[in-house]
């Protein structure tokens, strides 16, 4: 498994173009953001899972701004899904591949990612800045970043809410400016970020270009959400070919990925990316004041 992951690059590109997305409300005036008392709020992602597809229903976003029914050129013939709240056009092609990967090394990445979260090696931060009211504020910044340090786990092994972590300044925050939080829910797009994930001695890079993230705050202070984007298939296959990955998995990936690709059609109309959606839960944290 480690070998399979080593230097595996998952390039995730979201949004075919920044102009045609109607999935996100992000058009606020920058000058309206942030009052004198405005503060920051941070959550550290404490669990991260591949979102699956169940009966045509999937968590996620309409990444390409189209709702495909599986017949047209849009989405390369892959049908989009409907989110639990009824939004149509949800892109999550990877979710459909999941069952096929259940018995391969690849799926173990999920367990490994979560183990890495608990050791503090992978602490993704979802942050809101310029917040006047954490539940309803028509202008905030939403960002994805990383924290470092040793996480404090409770006697139940969960991340302790209210703990303080250090921001990992070696990582550039992906920021969506001037979005809103409505009833505790904030959605941000486009997110432009590279999230290098060091898992043991394997490095995975999520290159999220024009990505999307949603944060839902719960009454108990915890949060959950999704983030999604597209994986560049050529890159995956290239990495897999160069690593000592089991031939069985190589064959599977080569045969499956282009079939399910649903994003970024090239000039010939063949999709070069496949959409992937992560579901996460997150714990509210503080960050040490930066020097």
């Amino acid at each position, binding site marked *: 498994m480690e070998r399979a992951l080593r230097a595996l690059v998952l390039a995730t590109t979201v949004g075919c173009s920044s102009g045609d997305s109607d999935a996100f409300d992000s058009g606020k005036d920058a000058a309206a953001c942030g009052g004198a008392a405005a503060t920051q709020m941070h959550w550290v992602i404490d669990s991260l899972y591949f979102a699956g597809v169940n009966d045509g229903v999937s968590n996620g976003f309409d990444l390409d701004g189209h709702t495909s029914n599986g017949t047209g050129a849009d989405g390369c013939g892959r049908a989009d899904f409907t989110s639990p709240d009824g939004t149509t056009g949800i892109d999550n092609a990877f979710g459909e591949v999941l069952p096929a990967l259940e018995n391969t090394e690849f799926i173990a990445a999920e367990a490994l990612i979560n183990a890495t979260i608990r050791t503090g090696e992978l602490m993704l931060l979802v942050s809101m800045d310029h917040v006047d009211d954490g539940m309803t504020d028509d202008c905030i910044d939403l960002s994805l970043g990383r924290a470092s*340090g040793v996480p*404090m786990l409770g*006697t*139940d092994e*969960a991340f*302790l*809410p209210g703990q*303080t972590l250090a921001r990992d300044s070696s990582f550039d925050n992906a920021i969506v400016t001037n979005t809103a939080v409505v009833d505790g829910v904030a959605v941000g797009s486009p997110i432009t970020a590279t999230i290098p994930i060091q898992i043991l001695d394997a490095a995975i890079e999520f290159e999220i270009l024009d990505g999307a993230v949603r944060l839902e705050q719960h009454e108990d202070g915890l949060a959950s959400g999704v983030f999604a984007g597209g994986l560049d298939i050529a890159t995956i296959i290239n990495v897999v070919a160069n690593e000592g990955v089991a031939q069985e998995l190589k064959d599977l990936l080569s045969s499956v990925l282009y079939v399910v690709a649903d994003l970024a059609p090239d000039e010939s109309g063949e999709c070069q990316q496949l959409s992937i959606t992560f579901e996460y839960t997150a714990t509210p944290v*503080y960050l*040490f004041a930066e020097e």
Partner: protein
Amino acid sequence: MLSFRFPRCATLALAMVSALACDPDAESKPLPHGDRGAAPEVGVPAPRLKRLTAPQYRRIIADVFSPDVLLPATLETDERIEGLFQVGAANTTISSYGVEKYEGAAYDIAEQVLTTAAMRSRWVDCSGETIDEVCATDALDALGQRLWRRPLSDAELATVTDLALLAADTLSDFDSGLEYGIAALLMSPHFLYRVELGDGPEAPAGGYDDWEMASRLSFFLWDSTPDGALLEDAEAGRLTDEATLKAVIDRMLADPRTREGVGALFSEMLHLDELDSLTKDPNVFTYMSDELGPSARTETLSVIERHIFDDDAPYPVLFTTRRTFVDRTLAALYNVPAPTPEGFGALELPIESGRRGLLGHASFLALQAHAASTSVTRRGIFVREVLLCTTIPEPPANVNTSIPEVAEDALTMRERIAVHLEDPTCAGCHRITDPIGLAFENFDGLGQWRDTENGAWIDPAGNLDGTDFVDAWELGGVVAGHPVLTPCLTETLLQYATGASVEELDEALIDWHAEGFSDADHRVLWLLRDVALSPAFRGLGSVE
């Protein structure tokens, strides 16, 4: 028992504002010295042998030999009487097992001292290649003076020296023999007890002599044995003369060891030692960890040290200050940003934390609670007994003490223990403790904030001796302004310094010190000095 008297700053402090407001110049003002009427001529506590507490024993060994000396993890068990180990030390015995432990420790220490060059050379001025009587005598003479806090008599020195030489002959080795001499010093009652009897030929009428005063001062202020300079003061007779005594006390108060000594004092008073064995149900309290208890102690001691030594601020402000020191563990529990990734850092508690003062510390909230829940009674008793010196009678026996279980119409502790306040057999005492304890119900059994209990809103409001408060935050102010708070500290310090039980201390004397404390804006450094000058501390007065 204490009489009720309003300190000068009571009303201001009540208003929850920093009692500093009483005296804006407090910081620059020098400690006033005895510019008031003479102490009342009252009886003073009878001298009592005080056994060294385990922390004192450890500190002495660290001071006299080296902090690197390894000691057994347990020595004779210390006992609290009237809440204080120092009172226990004046009343309890050394058990058979304790004798065994002291013997074991004595040889352990002696062996380490003589086999570690740096420690040995501090006390032994010869190579040890031959059996050197003069060298043994000198070493034991010097060491004896430090350990027994007075010069050894010729006969005493001869006894330990003879033991060392006998052993050296028997074992054909000087150092092996000297071990027995050192061990004899460490096993003697003159080391294990603070022998301050006021019966020496040099003692002023009815008072303690210079050597005894050196011992009393150093244990009171440093929780350890006198250092060389203090013993020189004793030899020069400076500790029985009021003027020179004051100068020595001021020098001691400025010594960093007083910070440690005052830490020991408040640790005893606030039961902070018990934080080492803090037990909480991990299924109930997810924030519980091995670090929490020790961290909570460090927080409280840090706040007290900063308050007393660096800010020289009034004692009551300890109950309203938002300044504290936390590490990551406590910051998470308090739901505030940790000031520093490593260790402790200063923090101003935000108002919305609902938490301020010593009574907002986990050292109080977690310790005075049950393993799986809060304890209204324990928290109330702590404030009453420890901070306000009120003795709560034991509950009557043969009374059903159960409270109703959680029910639809009794979700919160306030509703459940309402029976205590209605039943006349319980109400007498529970009215004294419960309104205080209920104020802290917003803090769970570990000290973490909660708005609700079993889904029902917590009502922390109450009244303390005539003053209403809406929550624990306000109660901190009410405690700070309580007329008995500062006389109670006065009484506690007098007990701590003398080992006397309450009934051995004269009320008029406590009142006299408490008034002075009030006039000095309740600065603890002032009170420490005043107690060190007290007739009760110096034994100046007829023995009761």
